[in-house]
């Protein structure tokens, strides 16, 4: 019982250490190399399907930029001429620990920028701290719209569009592709299984809102499931969903949870009874190979990963070839997403240098250059058009899984792409208000 007292001391000290750390920090001024922290899940259930491919995507592009071997127009060597020294770090352990590590990166390791973060929870946690510490941070994958809708951020950028588009595109896809002709009431009902945190909650909320606009006659179930992140066992949840009359099941599961869910529900004939809409389940398709059920509506959060494997854009072909050569696997969604963030940073650096009379730019100059930036990434166009020029929007595509027997590889069919103007509110409008007003001014073609 003596522990109780003593342990509190420890945390006092901890707090003290962080404070001390801030005294010791001196801002660095490097010219020919820059140091950047790249954070993704290296351990834990999200490591394999998300974090590691993400890290590899970033690594590949960073090396290519350092060596000037990226295809044109990005073949200029370096980041504003400087080589990037990337420090990879593990994202697991929860938001508070990540904040502590972030402070460590900024205050002790004197990084020039931070790139990464997959979990929406972590982005929500890091966002305010990045602004407080005035550290340019480019989020790569996380998708919660709260990040910019709660407050504008001065130092935080996000190359990934938020979950609103993923969910709205999913709803629209269902409306466009499935709700044709005569349909029974039961098949017009929908439910969901989403992880119980920012990403899962937001994803389902916007899917529901989207359905109300696109399919006003469809009805939402009263018991959508929200199991805990990394729960791993979904027997009861699957039963509950099976008992539910709703035909459409929306899921924003990702990482090991998604694969576990697919495995457990597959043997129970779940995919034959229900139409499952997955907004981010691309990774499971490869790991399950030909076992992966056909007919799952699949999104990849942008023109990345599974949905662009056949895309012939030279940038895309370069990325896929290099990635396969180096890592013996297809690049997944997160590989693209991290690569995009690195690319955005490079372009902003280069532009800022140009504007600064070819002198190495300050952080503020880089931020100014990144604000509202519009650039072509591997397939799609990224435009920092929301959140006062900090939040990117881009097109989102959905398709239906179909195993390609000829190639012996998973494939996708009935691909549809929705442009950003169709699924995101105009700048300055809150997503929820916009959808509730019937999405005025949307352009979908």
């Amino acid at each position, binding site marked *: 019982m003596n522990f109780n*007292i003593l342990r509190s001391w420890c945390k006092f000290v901890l707090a003290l250490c962080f404070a001390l750390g801030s005294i010791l920090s001196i801002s660095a001024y490097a010219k020919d190399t820059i140091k950047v922290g790249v954070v993704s899940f290296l351990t834990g259930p999200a490591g394999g399907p998300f974090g590691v491919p993400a890290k590899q995507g970033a690594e590949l592009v960073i090396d290519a930029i350092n060596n000037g071997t990226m295809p044109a127009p990005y073949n200029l060597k370096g980041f504003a001429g400087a080589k990037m020294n990337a420090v990879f770090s593990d994202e697991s352990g929860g938001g508070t620990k990540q904040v502590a590590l972030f402070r460590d990166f900024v205050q002790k390791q004197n990084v020039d920028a931070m790139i990464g973060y997959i979990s929406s929870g972590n982005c929500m946690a890091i966002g305010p701290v990045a602004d407080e510490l005035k550290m340019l941070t480019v989020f790569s994958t996380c998708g919660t719209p709260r990040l910019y809708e709660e407050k504008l951020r001065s130092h935080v950028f996000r190359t990934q569009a938020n979950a609103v588009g993923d969910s709205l595109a999913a709803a629209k896809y269902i409306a466009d592709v499935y709700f044709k002709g005569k349909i029974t009431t039961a098949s017009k009902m929908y439910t969901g299984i989403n992880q*119980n945190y920012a990403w899962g909650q937001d994803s389902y909320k916007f899917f529901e809102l989207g359905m109300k606009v696109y399919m006003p006659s469809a009805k939402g179930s009263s018991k959508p499931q929200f199991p805990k992140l990394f729960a791993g066992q979904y027997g009861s949840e699957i039963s509950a969903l099976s008992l539910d009359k709703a035909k459409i099941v929306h899921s924003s599961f990702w990482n090991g949870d998604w694969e576990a869910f697919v495995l457990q529900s597959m043997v129970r004939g779940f995919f034959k009874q229900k139409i499952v809409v997955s907004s981010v389940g691309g990774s499971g398709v490869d790991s399950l190979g030909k076992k992966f059920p056909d007919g799952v509506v699949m999104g990849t959060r942008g023109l990345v990963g599974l949905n662009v494997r056949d895309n012939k854009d030279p940038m895309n072909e370069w990325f896929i070839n290099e990635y396969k050569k180096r890592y013996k696997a297809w690049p997944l969604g997160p590989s693209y997403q991290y690569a995009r963030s690195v690319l955005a940073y490079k372009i902003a650096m280069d532009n800022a240098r140009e504007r600064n009379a070819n002198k190495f730019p300050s952080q503020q100059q880089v931020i100014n250059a990144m604000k509202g930036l519009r650039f072509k990434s591997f397939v799609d166009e990224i435009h920092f058009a929301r959140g006062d020029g900090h939040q990117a929007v881009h097109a989102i595509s959905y398709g239906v899984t179909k195993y390609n027997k000829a190639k012996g590889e998973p494939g996708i069919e009935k691909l549809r792409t929705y442009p950003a103007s169709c699924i995101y509110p105009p700048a300055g409008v809150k997503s929820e208000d916009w959808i509730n007003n019937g999405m005025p001014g949307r352009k979908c073609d």
Partner: protein
Amino acid sequence: MYYGFGAYAVAMCQKYFGMTDIFLRFFIAVAAAGLLGFALGFILRRYREIFFAMLSLAFSMVLYGLLAKAEFLGSTDGMSISPSTILGYELGRFGLLYFICFFVICAIVFAQAYLRSSLGHLTTAISDNEIRVEYLGYSVEKAIHIKYVISACLAGGAGGLMAASLGQVDPDSMVLWSVSGELVFVTIMSGLGNILAPFMGAVLFEFIRTYAFELAPQAWQMIIGGTLLAIIFFSPGGLWSFFQKLNFLRKKNND
């Protein structure tokens, strides 16, 4: 658990009352944790050893279950906390540092006084021999309860300060049992007996963790686990006993 509770108290007060004053934050955290400790103490004081630990664990998991699932408490994401203020002025990092130091010193003085008091000595007495304490006319349960509330207050205060200094709270890194495990680890590493011991232990722990994290981001747990085992085996009394031994040797040499 109280650590997390204190942290959440700070977060809640900001969310619903917009409270950011560092003093208020600290006292809210202490008071909230103290109240919770007082309430749970009525149940916990009846248990010893492993049952005490298990029940504490159960309570903290109940809290975790609530926090992780309740959306208005931020569920698994937790909540972010804005920088602290004092009388309406924003505290910088340095300001916060001074205040944390101030609170730490207050706490040290308080804990020192407690340990010197009869009640503080009673703790050792109880762990030595409960029957005797009862026969000396003092309720063992009451003494444990008081101690429990005090430690809850300290932990809550620590949590509140931690929340204020980090700017973020979430259940996984504040309430989960493995967090308590880490704190106990620091205690074991430091050894019992002096207020400065956990101080050194915590510094060393952070030191090891930071470097383990940097050197081997995929194997840092292993390094910490190994350190823990090594300490348990080679210096069961923790770092403090190591220092005491040094002192002892020095005295011997002087004689």
